[in-house]
């Protein structure tokens, strides 16, 4: 019984820690500034409002701004870029996830199972390219992308995000692939299968949960990446969510509640993705893990 209590206490603590700040953003987006900033603090002294979300999606100016006509300009339309930025971020992140799952796993398999000259060197090379801090590579990355004619194009962001995620994907997956008992694959070899078939028919299904994990990792890193997305996109058309959120967080015309509303919206696509994907991972864990 003590174990059960311990588990539930831990679960609640975890819920508070992880979700607490995010629940706060939701609260912050529906409680008016006047209540949020009151001292002594009385958060629930005023009525909550969905005006900020309304503004983001429809452009209807919140009631609080209508008090004195002359000030109606103190609200910015920049926050209405959020829906489009969400779309851009999602497209880029899904592409990066795809690149990682497909090409990353292939490279990882080569390192896990094949022998060839220059293996250590190549492996080191791929993994080491994450050593140099991002800020030091800004100028050369910018110049390369510009010479490819890809400035202000989502493809550039996908490429750069891929280079940021692939080394880790390759590293992790090669370790996971190697943890699959060799005998299973050798059984296939004896039956005459070449590396590619072994890879597709045996390795991939067995590593489903780790593939999903690394795919998720790639998605999340891309979805939340700020620095390169900032440098490589210049118009609202291609701008990603982190760049918009970064701009909003220091924009004086964005009320705190508006900013929090934007942050909360950021979570929704991720929530959807996670709900879809986790089910698959869970099944992979239940059925895949117990195979050996």
């Amino acid at each position, binding site marked *: 019984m003590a174990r*059960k209590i311990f588990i539930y206490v831990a679960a609640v603590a*975890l*819920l508070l820690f*992880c979700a607490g*700040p*995010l629940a*706060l*953003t939701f609260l912050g987006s529906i409680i008016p500034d006047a209540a949020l*900033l009151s*001292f002594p*603090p009385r*958060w629930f002294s005023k009525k909550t409002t969905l005006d900020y979300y309304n503004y983001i999606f429809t452009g209807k100016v919140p009631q609080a701004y209508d008090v004195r006509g002359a000030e109606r300009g103190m609200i910015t339309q920049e926050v209405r870029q959020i829906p489009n930025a969400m779309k851009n971020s999602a497209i880029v992140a899904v592409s990066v996830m795809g690149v990682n799952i497909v*090409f990353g796993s*292939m*490279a990882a398999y*080569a390192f896990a*199972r*094949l*022998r*060839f000259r220059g*293996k250590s060197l*190549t492996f080191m*090379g*791929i993994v080491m390219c994450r*050593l*140099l*801090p*991002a*800020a*030091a*590579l800004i100028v*050369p990355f910018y*110049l*390369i992308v510009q010479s490819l004619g890809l400035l202000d194009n989502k493809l550039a962001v996908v490429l750069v995000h*891929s*280079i940021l995620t692939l080394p*880790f994907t390759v590293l992790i997956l090669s*370790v*996971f692939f190697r943890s699959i008992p060799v005998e299973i694959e050798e059984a296939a070899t004896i039956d005459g299968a070449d*590396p590619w078939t072994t890879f597709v028919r045996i390795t991939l299904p067995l590593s489903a949960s*780790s593939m999903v*994990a690394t795919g*998720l*990792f790639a998605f*999340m890193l891309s979805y*939340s*990446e*700020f*620095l390169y997305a900032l440098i490589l996109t210049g118009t609202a058309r291609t701008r990603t969510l*982190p760049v918009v959120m*970064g701009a909003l967080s220091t924009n004086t015309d964005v009320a705190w509640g508006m*900013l929090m509303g934007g*942050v909360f919206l*950021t*979570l929704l696509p991720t*929530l959807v993705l996670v*709900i879809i994907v*986790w089910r698959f991972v869970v099944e992979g864990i239940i059925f*895949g893990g117990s195979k*050996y």
Partner: protein
Amino acid sequence: MATRETSRYPIQWLFPVLILVIVFTIYPFAYAVWNSLFQILLVLPTKPFVGLQNYLDVVVSRYFLEALTNTLLFSLVTAPIVVVVALGVARLLLTKFVGRGVLRAVVLLPWAIPGAVSGIIWMWIFHGQFGVLNIVLYRLGIIHKYIPWLTEPSLARMAVVIAHVWTQIPFAAVLLMAALTTINKELYEAAEVDGAGPFRRLLSVTIPHIKGIMLITLIYELIIGITTYDTVYSMTGGGPGGATTLLSYYIWAESFKMLHFGRGAALGVIMALLTLVLIMTILKAIPNEIMVKEE
């Protein structure tokens, strides 16, 4: 026999990754290292070769020592915390209990938030005048005066560590969950039969089996700790004083604000070497199979 006999370079497996690496790594690395050897001040027309002078300038500069200390401390403190907490979280999420599905989804959410925005949220939590933590503690009667979380150096450092750990838990937990599922359940049962309690099982069954992944996670978190700055800077701006300044910020500052691209590049190289040394030390100190040389 663990591997095949092929000796031909498996170009078809590696091609896409290699192309990206070559284009986006070799040239930029070379560019950075090359630039670090010149005095490149944007407002001056000439770029004289200065050898290692930039490196020297960086190391004796006013910000270096404090930022270096802060960065190392930050990294060495957050990385183990993340790994340990994430291991607990992973273990918890694999246990059966009501609401587990919801918790699994919720734990992942901090991952989707850009670092700078996480910094804003946690700044709101820790702020001295309108911060949530102060408000909650005040309403519960635990404090009668707001605590200056972000303007007291030691408290500020603690606050940024907490915020950073929050951003890293989802990723580490996912990795460790995947790693934990590779452990055969029967090994646990065997240990239990032998009379091993939960802690003993952790040490003798769990950790040995996922050591590789744990190590990789630790190293990855160290790298992140050394190279990150957006969460911290959006919380504190590097303050108070210089208590939360981080080295990575200065690469950006040297190049784009002080317009000294040579020094910015030099700092980048210094940090890369620092990271390399750190990683090598850890890999040598803890026995593992990551760097196994093929025979």
